């Protein structure tokens, strides 16, 4: 229901802006939308009457719930059931053979008494934080730059795009080869890399992980910001120009505030991606040296599929689920479905 109302509101704002001057269209859409949200009561009234009319008028021609059943059943079976089972399995002992055996909170006490697990949580947070701290400024700058109209920028953007075509596996394998301690680039550039083994220390290994995910995902976030930067009304810059604001000031006072939504969206995606980093660790560092880069998702994989301690693995997985759900709640609270959609429309 509410989605229909939203569509309607969007239509109204659109028709309102059509009468306005072309230049400050987006600004007007904003204010119109805000007023539509603020003055909710009359809207709801109109929506209700329309709803009533539709109930009598055009109930025919509407698909029944059966249309949604196959996909929902399939999703329930292969995504929701395992999600519920992960909670159940975390209270059992199971080695992969025979039926799981109930053991109470044993897995939980064991997992949280393991210093490697505690460290893995901190490492996950560190890797996530590094990803956001490095990629956000980089992708905002690149996105704003690529939003310009010059021809060479389009060519360069096409090259920037290539990392997105590679799978995470391929990216990790590629960088592992390029940074190989014996045959890679570092072995040939001792002046920059010292002994050439970047994987030998914790700081080096974490640096490699952060760098490789930056290399892989910055183009994606650049695309998000590029779309948003193109949508910034030019009239704002023209006004700033008249007021004598320089390029730096324009960036901080116009571009950045206008990119607020895309920054929120891309940050949330980075956090979810960072918390679930797995392939990069498996292929680049195997959690090492020692357990120095064993982040939570990798720890879970180790416990379950290398140690055949599936109960403990499930407990760790549940921690991941809770973290992801918290993030998703933030998604809904901070951005809302509507805006995510309009952000996606800005892309391409």
């Amino acid at each position, binding site marked *: 229901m509410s989605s229909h109302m939203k569509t309607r509101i969007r239509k109204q704002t659109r028709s309102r802006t059509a009468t306005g001057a072309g230049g400050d269209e987006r600004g007007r859409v904003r204010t119109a939308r805000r007023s539509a949200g603020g003055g909710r009561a009359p809207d709801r009234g109109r929506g209700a009457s329309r709803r009533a009319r539709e109930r009598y008028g*055009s109930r025919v*021609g*509407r*698909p*029944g*719930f*059966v*249309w*949604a059943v*196959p*996909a*929902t059943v*399939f*999703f329930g079976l*292969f*995504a929701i059931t395992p*999600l519920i*089972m*992960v909670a159940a*399995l975390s209270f059992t002992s199971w080695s*992969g053979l025979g039926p799981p055996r109930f053991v109470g909170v044993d897995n939980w006490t064991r997992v949280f008494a393991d210093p490697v697990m505690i460290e893995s949580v901190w490492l996950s947070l560190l890797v996530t934080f590094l990803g956001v701290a490095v990629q956000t400024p980089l992708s905002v700058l*690149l996105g704003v*730059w690529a939003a310009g109209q010059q021809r060479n920028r389009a060519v360069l953007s096409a*090259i920037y*795009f*290539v*990392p997105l*075509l*590679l*799978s995470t*596996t391929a990216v990790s*394998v*590629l960088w*592992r*080869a*390029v940074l190989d301690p*014996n*045959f890679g680039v570092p072995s*040939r550039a001792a002046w920059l890399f010292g002994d050439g083994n970047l994987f030998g220390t914790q700081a080096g290994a974490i640096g490699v992980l952060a760098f490789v995910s930056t*290399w892989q995902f910055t183009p*994606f976030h650049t*695309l*998000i910001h590029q779309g948003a930067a193109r949508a910034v009304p030019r009239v704002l810059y*023209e006004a700033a120009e008249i007021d004598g604001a320089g*390029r730096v000031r324009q960036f901080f006072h116009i571009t950045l505030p206008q990119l607020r939504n895309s920054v929120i969206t891309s940050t949330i995606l980075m956090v*979810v991606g960072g918390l*679930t980093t*797995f392939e990069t660790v498996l*292929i680049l560092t195997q959690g090492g040296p020692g357990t120095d880069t064993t982040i939570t998702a990798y720890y879970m*994989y180790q416990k*379950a*599929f290398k140690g055949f301690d599936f109960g403990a693995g*499930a407990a760790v*997985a549940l921690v*991941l*689920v809770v973290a992801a759900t918290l993030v*998703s709640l933030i998604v809904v609270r901070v951005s809302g479905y509507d805006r995510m*959609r309009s952000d996606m429309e800005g*892309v*391409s």
Partner: protein
Amino acid sequence: MNRRPNHLAGAGSLVWLLLVGLPLYVMITATLRTRSDYARRGPLALPERITLDNYTGAFSTGFGRYFLNTLTVTVCVVGLVLLLVPPLAYAIVRSRSRFASSAFRLFLLGLAVPAQAVIVPMFYLISEAGLYDNLLGVVLPTAAFCLPVSALVLSGAMRDIGPELYEAMAMDGASPRRMFFQLVLPLSRGGLSTIVVFSALQAWNGFLFPLVLTQSDSTKLITLGLYDFRTEHGIDIPGLLAAVVLSMVPVLLVYLFARRALVQGLMGVGGK
């Protein structure tokens, strides 16, 4: 607008170009060099003479079969998504039933569930179903995890169809079924191509499900082939990189011929 060229930004973008280009350069040149050439003259040198042995070598270690397996999985996943999502999105957008809106909420919730979180019970379920080490056992969960983004994208596309079109068809006495086939499907072609590309990419690049749910060589997928190649022949870097290049060829082809659909499909990936 400020018309002065921004030299600082230009220089910065060139540095980034170098960072993006360097590994790609190493990748392409290395695959055309012999192993001894690569080891002797280092990763940055140009080929002494061009050889295609690395590519034929990759095929002889089984990449042809991995390729076919991956293609099978990709086709099945896309097929399942195309079978399940359009009716779902249609119901989400047009149905008046409470079930459809709760289903939509369920899929929105599913957006945030990472595959890592369910991998342990998935292993249990697939083993119990007798699908362990079977390509179908990879297809089912992969398709399931494509559904939330696909439903979101496609229902977004279907919302853009104006109500007056439905009303006109209702006036002609069209059934929901006829509206679906004659109105909704033709008008949401853009959304359909986005979810095709998105789910194909998910299947082609998927790693975690194949890693955990298959083990033998006959069911190996290409990403897993890369991973095993690295573990077993880690020092044959030109051969390894040739396999990497082969794995990205289909995606590159899509990039060249359907760039817009690919970008939108990729942005769908980000919605995950």
